[in-house]
């Protein structure tokens, strides 16, 4: 009799443990799937519902994890890149060249974040390039070099990109007060290309 009760309790506990593992594990995976998986534009992805009261539960949870206090799209459009144009994950062991054309927005910036979603440590406290800081090319476009040491024109360093110096990193492109056309062309906007130059 006692053996049957203990066996039943163990089965119940095992069921609960499996349910917790399935439920919390899949929830955490969904939350960490990243911001803006709704629309893809080259290496960049976004979700127009970011920050919005119309956001679904998954978009809202992803924002809480990787973009808390993000503004809604009426104010700012956020694009995130965690891959390059070839679809390979961005790595702090590699160097990348971003080539961009003028963006139809009041202000833009491109910022490097570590795998922990915080700014990457570097001696110069240099984490981004923006409309008001970037040196432009002759055609008014821009080239940004993202590499371990941040060398090159408009360089941003990626070294020591996250906890335990994990090698994954990501970029956020912010478009503040973009032109009205932006909203209907999120998938076809001419966003900066992200090309891998080489790896160490």
């Amino acid at each position: 009799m006692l053996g049957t009760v203990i066996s039943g309790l163990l089965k119940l506990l095992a069921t609960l443990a499996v349910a917790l593992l399935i439920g919390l594990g899949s929830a955490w995976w969904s939350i960490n799937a990243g911001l803006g998986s709704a629309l893809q534009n080259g290496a960049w992805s976004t979700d127009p519902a970011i920050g919005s009261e119309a956001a679904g539960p998954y978009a809202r949870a992803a924002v809480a994890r990787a973009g808390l206090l993000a503004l809604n799209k009426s104010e700012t459009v956020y694009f995130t890149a965690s891959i390059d144009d070839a679809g390979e994950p961005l790595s702090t062991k590699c160097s990348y060249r971003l080539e961009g054309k003028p963006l139809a927005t009041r202000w833009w910036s491109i910022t490097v974040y570590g795998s922990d979603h915080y700014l990457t440590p570097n001696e110069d406290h240099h984490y981004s390039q923006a409309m008001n800081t970037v040196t432009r090319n002759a055609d008014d476009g821009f080239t940004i070099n993202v590499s371990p040491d941040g060398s090159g024109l408009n360089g941003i360093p990626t070294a020591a990109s996250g906890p335990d110096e994990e090698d994954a990193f990501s970029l956020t492109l912010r478009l503040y007060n973009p032109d009205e056309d932006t909203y209907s062309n999120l998938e076809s906007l001419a966003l900066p290309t992200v090309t891998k130059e080489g790896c160490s």
Partner: protein
Amino acid sequence: MKAWPYLLAAAIILGGIIHIAAVLIWPVFVMDRLVSGIEEQVGLGVIAHAPRATSDSRTVVRPSPDLIYSICAFDVSKAPLRISAPVPKDTYFSLSMFGDNSDNFFVVNDSQLLKDTVEVILVQNEEQSGALGGAPIVVAPSDRGVVLFRTLIQSEDRFEELDAIRQQAICEVM
């Protein structure tokens, strides 16, 4: 009869319920942690001016190093909150508000403001706003949340000027 297929089915169904609950609760949990953290440090309805974001900044994920942020946590269940700030010239500035589920329910920027000062009153509901006059009223979708001011550092030369201007912003429980 084998019991394990039934137990596995029960685990999957229960796992699905836990999954949905966790996804729904996560934003509320994160916001509650943020509001409680600000409450512990400076109190509710009190503005805090964050230093410029660096790799040591850990209050909010993915901060912009090109902006300076000021923040106040609110709880309008007992009293409205008066918010005012001078609007800096020739740079981006915005006043935004977030509910307890992280939704951005209000935002206004410098290009939309006709005066050199922005002032709004945040209330719990229309009834609470009845006795108030003057400044525009914003109804909060939740009792608790945060107000966030963003100022773009247009150039490093202007940092001290813009930093001084943002420090004049006020959050005040009425």
